[in-house]
């Protein structure tokens, strides 16, 4: 499964990228799986996406929870809690 991954704000800066295409192994089917897979990259990925850290995610531009199922071509965004207004 290939996904477009987007990162914003603090995470964009720390990850050193705002956008990537990721080819995921077959065992990744939910948002929780994806985050787990990203943590496997170690370093800032493991640190920023660790249990207990506050982050939010959207799938195809709708807010999504850990159980959200991912599909080929989805746009998945991971970002800090929002602070607009």
């Amino acid at each position, binding site marked *: 499964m290939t996904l477009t991954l987007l990162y914003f704000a603090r995470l*964009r800066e720390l990850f050193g990228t705002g956008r990537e295409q990721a080819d995921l192994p077959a065992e990744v089917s939910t948002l929780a799986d994806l985050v787990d897979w990203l943590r496997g990259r170690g370093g800032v990925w493991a640190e920023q996406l660790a249990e207990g850290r506050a982050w939010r995610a*959207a799938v195809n*531009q709708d807010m999504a929870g850990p159980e959200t199922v991912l599909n080929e071509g989805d746009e998945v965004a991971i970002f800090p*809690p929002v*602070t*607009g207004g």
Partner: protein
Amino acid sequence: MKVAVQTEPFDLNAEVAALYRANPKVGAVASFLGITRDVNAGQGLAAMTLEHYPGMTERALERICREAAERWPLLDVTVIHRVGELKPTEPIVLVAVAAAHRGEAFAACEFIMDYLKTRAPFWKKETTAEGGKWVDARESDETAAARWSGSSQDRGNSRGS
């Protein structure tokens, strides 16, 4: 309904007038302007930079406005949020709601702001003398948004213009 995300300033007069000039049923316009505060009272904040998620931001704002229009009898809504670099005392966001009576205009305006603060993908970065710093989310904003869940749907419906 108008939703815009833009770098340019907006004209409060023009935006608010557009809500009531064309519709003689409008008796009330409640509006909110969020301003870039200089939290250090002049000692440090040089600018605020606002980042957003193009596409999703507009969708989220439109959804928030539709939810407000389902809860209260609104006549029109405008939300404009600026992005990019903003100086202290510059407006960041405008939410303006037109209705026949004031109760629903106030309630919907506050509802939209509370939801915008927690569900619209914007992020603020302060630039001070020491460098850039991303603003942390406030728990009080989650609390403010949460109070609209549950039994408060009728809030603002029983009052006059």
